[in-house]
């Protein structure tokens, strides 16, 4: 009886923890490599060194300019994608009908269609419009790739909104823009914020399409990391990976803390 319980409950649970370890532990390897005292990718040998983190802040090494480039592009992308996404999601929610449904499928399709196909198309289009390797070109592509996320996030917020609120405002004589700006918008702020954040992250991380539409002028952080991985020498690569890891962990912890505080406030 006892043995059977170990096999049926204990083993699967042990396997699950091993798999969770498989997901999490390999990522941690970047930390010791970032602290290496050598100038090639290796584990620390005669002690640890912070010099590779210092290299990240050295303007001439290129990591800092790339971070700023990516941050700028991601901010622009988040602003545009959020504005377009809010307008679309709210309009589609209020209007209904075949047109918004069709456009919604088109807007969401970048989530399913392999990005390499989009990259092939954009190389051709940007070459014709002379937008290859330009900030405008990268921001516009990132907006298209971020729109599914903003539309979904804002759509989720809207699905909790009571349509009768809109009917009430309209029956009291509110003009259309008043309904959108003063009735609907204030009620979906969390969704809009989530959408903006997702758009920022999507742009910050985007590599597949960016790789083909940028060259020497616009070097985003993922592009620089990509090149650096292929060279596989510079330990500064492990340092930037460590920074990204720490930021991700901090953001997740912050989110957990905020959620917990909101829960406590509710009860």
């Amino acid at each position, binding site marked *: 009886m006892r043995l059977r319980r170990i096999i*049926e409950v204990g083993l*699967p*649970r042990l396997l*699950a923890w091993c*798999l969770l*370890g498989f*997901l*999490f532990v*390999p990522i941690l390897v*970047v930390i010791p490599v970032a602290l290496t005292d050598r100038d090639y*990718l*290796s*584990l620390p040998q005669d002690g640890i060194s912070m010099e590779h983190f210092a290299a990240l802040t050295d303007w001439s090494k290129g990591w800092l300019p790339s971070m700023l480039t990516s941050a700028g592009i991601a901010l622009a992308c988040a602003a545009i994608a959020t504005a*377009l*996404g809010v307008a*679309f999601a*709210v*309009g*589609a929610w*209020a*209007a*209904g009908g075949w*047109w*918004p449904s069709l456009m919604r499928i*088109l*807007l969401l399709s970048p989530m*399913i*269609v*392999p*990005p*390499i*196909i*989009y*990259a*092939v*198309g*954009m190389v*051709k289009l940007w070459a014709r419009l002379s937008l290859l390797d330009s900030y405008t070109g990268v921001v*516009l592509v990132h907006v*298209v790739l971020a*729109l599914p996320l903003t*539309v979904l996030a804002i*759509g989720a917020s809207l699905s909790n909104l009571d349509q009768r609120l809109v009917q009430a405002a309209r029956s009291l004589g509110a003009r*259309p823009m008043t*309904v959108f700006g003063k009735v609907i918008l204030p009620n979906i702020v969390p969704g809009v914020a989530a959408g903006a954040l997702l758009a920022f*992250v999507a742009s910050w991380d985007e*590599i*597949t399409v960016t790789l*083909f539409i940028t060259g020497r002028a616009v070097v985003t952080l*993922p592009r620089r*990391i*990509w090149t650096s*991985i292929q060279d*596989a020498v510079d330990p500064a*690569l492990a340092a930037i*990976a460590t920074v990204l890891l720490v930021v*991700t*962990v901090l953001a*997740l912890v912050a989110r*957990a803390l905020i959620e917990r505080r909101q829960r406590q406030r509710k009860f």
Partner: protein
Amino acid sequence: MRNFKTTALLLTVPASLVAIGLYAAPILQVLALSLTEPKFGLANYQSLFANAAVGRVVMTTLKVSLMTTVLTVLASYVVAFAIIHMSAGWRRISLFLVLVPFWISVLVRAFSWITILRRRGVLNSALMEMGVISSPLDLVYNLFGVTIGMVHYMMPFAILLLYANLSDIDRRIMQAARSLGARPATIFWRVWLPLSLPGIALATLFVFVFSLGFLVTPALLGAGKTLMIAEYISVQISSTSRWDLATSLSTMLLLVVGIIVFAAMRSPALRAAFVARPQQ
């Protein structure tokens, strides 16, 4: 009253224009180019099917995608199933271990695996020091490395999908089964598994479709030796400028993904997961 609906429709215009002009149009142009580059006709597709290199790439892609899908869905189900049975505290810890890899850049993850698996990497060094092996194993820049990296990339997605699906299942059904004398194994095979089939189908679909067109991990962990479709297309446009090959192969990939998604949409459970809530 009409005015309100018109305003609402006008609000959908800017995003629609972006989607049509900057997404649909360039992709349609890829389809068009595959038929016209260099001259009109199906010649590109004829040479595509006759091309032995393309055949090898397609076989590699199918092999890696199938292995990735099977391993990912199996492993993710084990994890998601364990998570929903944990106490709240352990569940938070487990989800954290899933969310960190979920959110971290795919490049960082590929880099971690290269660091661990390469010939003078962490794993080979550790095994040699312990005396398990005398010369380093080839763990990366081959099918093995690509599959490990892909499974690692896909698992967080699949776990979160399966976790959401399993959490929605009504636990009272299992209580009923237990009170009627069903053993744990019977409850799993006869109750849990059938009820989680929609989630398994959705995860399988997503992982397989993502794998087919995936560029980053196969390119970095395969390094040109294990060549999949996306990387092959990328080589055609960035180094050899074979637009005929790139566009016809892209079209085939789009067609295959489209057929898979369309076929999946015919199942009501999957449709419910995708399509927008109907307007009242």
